[in-house]
């Protein structure tokens, strides 16, 4: 018992646990649509694209962490709509267009951060997350914006489901298809901003797709897929932080590795059952 309780005597561990669970739930449920619509690459690109925004905020605020959430949020929303517009109207193929923008913006972010002397440490926090430094104020922001994302998804659940399964049906039902598509991009963007401190830019896509993909292997019902994904993501957050504490592994990496382990288990189980 003390094995489980010992890490929790530290307040930063408590806050880290809460953050990891909240972020896990939001990412997993939004991630359900990311997986079903094949938007993993978009999610990965979006997370990387916000780096220059964070870097700029970091430079402007002289290294303070608190305002970074707002910089991340603003950049993510602009970038998501930008990528959405470009991939729709581009002459070159969608994934190529996204790849060019994503790598270019990412390089710009690194360039900006490299002008600061403590560059290596700060950069690694943005890239891989630093959940143990989450403040109480950040927790409230995660709760507020994460809640907003989930509420919006729930409110438009039938529209998003119909649009994801059959876009032509959505069009003949005269649903506002473009508006809904953009709304989904914005929801993914807010999710990325909310998750930034927990897993960082580089591992974000794992939180969006891995728990949802694990759940997808185990059920063929959408509500159940969302529930299972949320459970896997929360468990990954908690287990990952214990691993991080006892094995001294970077927290974001430990969370993602745990989620990956769940996926491999589910994948193996599925293979055994179908034999």
């Amino acid at each position, binding site marked *: 018992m003390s094995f489980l309780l010992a890490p929790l005597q530290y307040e930063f561990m408590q806050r880290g646990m809460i953050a990891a669970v909240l972020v896990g739930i939001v990412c997993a449920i939004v991630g359900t649509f990311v997986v079903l619509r094949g938007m993993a690459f978009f999610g990965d690109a979006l997370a990387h694209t916000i780096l220059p925004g964070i870097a700029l905020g970091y430079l402007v605020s002289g290294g303070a962490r608190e305002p970074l959430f707002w910089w991340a949020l603003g950049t993510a929303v602009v970038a998501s709509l930008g990528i959405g517009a470009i991939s729709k109207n581009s002459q070159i193929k969608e994934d190529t267009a996204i790849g060019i923008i994503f790598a270019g913006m990412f390089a710009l972010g690194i360039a900006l951060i490299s002008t600061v002397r403590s560059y290596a440490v700060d950069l690694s926090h943005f890239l891989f997350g630093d959940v143990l430094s989450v403040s109480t104020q950040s927790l409230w922001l995660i709760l507020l914006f994460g809640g907003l994302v989930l509420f919006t998804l729930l409110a438009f659940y039938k*529209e998003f489901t119909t649009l994801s399964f059959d876009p032509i049906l959505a069009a*003949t039902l*005269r649903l506002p298809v473009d508006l809904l598509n953009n709304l989904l991009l914005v929801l993914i963007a807010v999710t990325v901003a909310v998750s930034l401190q927990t897993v960082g830019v580089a591992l974000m896509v794992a939180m969006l797709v891995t728990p949802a993909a694990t759940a997808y292997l185990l059920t063929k019902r959408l509500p159940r897929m969302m529930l299972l994904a949320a459970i896997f993501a929360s468990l990954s957050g908690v287990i990952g932080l214990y691993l991080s504490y006892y094995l001294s592994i970077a927290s974001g990496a430990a969370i993602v590795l745990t989620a990956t382990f769940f996926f491999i288990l589910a994948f193996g189980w599925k293979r055994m059952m179908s034999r």
Partner: protein
Amino acid sequence: MYPNVPHKHDQPILDVSHLAVRYNGHVALEDVTFHLHAGERVAVVGPNGAGKSTLIKAIAGVLQPSSGDVNIYGSHPDKHVCIGYIPQRSQVDWNFPVMVADVVMMGRSAKLGPFNWPRKKDWDFVNHALETVEIADLASRQISQLSGGQQQRMFIARAIAQESELMLMDEPLTGLDAPSQDGILNLLDRLKQEKVTVIVATHDLDQAASHFDRILLLNHRIVAFGVPQDVMQTNNLIQAYGGRLRSTENGNVLAVDDCCDNEHV
């Protein structure tokens, strides 16, 4: 957000006038003009690439014509939620995590409006639709477990739950075995009794002639439009298909470029 224009019943359910669709200089449809009255069943036939799918999408209002007009009961298709579009089965993600009843309920999305969840009335619509197409026992199956014929019935049920008055089906019979094809054709007979207008794109001239009130023979332009015996003249068929025609023993004419999945000739 979810339009629902009152239907002008003195107007035809579908009025297509000088419709043209061009993609990057390539002509898919040119000067297509015809109209239909409620309850008619029409087969759209023509060679591969004749513009059948394009015509169906333009009628559904999901593809903007380059010129010309499509009107449903006197107004643009954008204004109607009564058009049921039934996709080609190959274009559907059959591993999507939904049950048969969920897919049929999607047809109610427009009537439900934003922020509303299905009520008892909507479930009644769904159950009635599933009973009409005789797959009520499959309501809680995952869609990947359906046979080809059942998949097609599910989409027809969705169009019924949508309360559609004009059903557009893109190749609904392609790839189905003969009993499943007959099942779907019988279903179309039942829809006719309920005054549903049906437009079916098909490769099968024989079926088109025997099961539909009218045939629209298409090759970018309308080659012929009317009752089967008028349309199915050899000169019309040659005009539509060129040299790719063959007669079968019982005197039917078959378009050979499309016949690969035609089991029952």
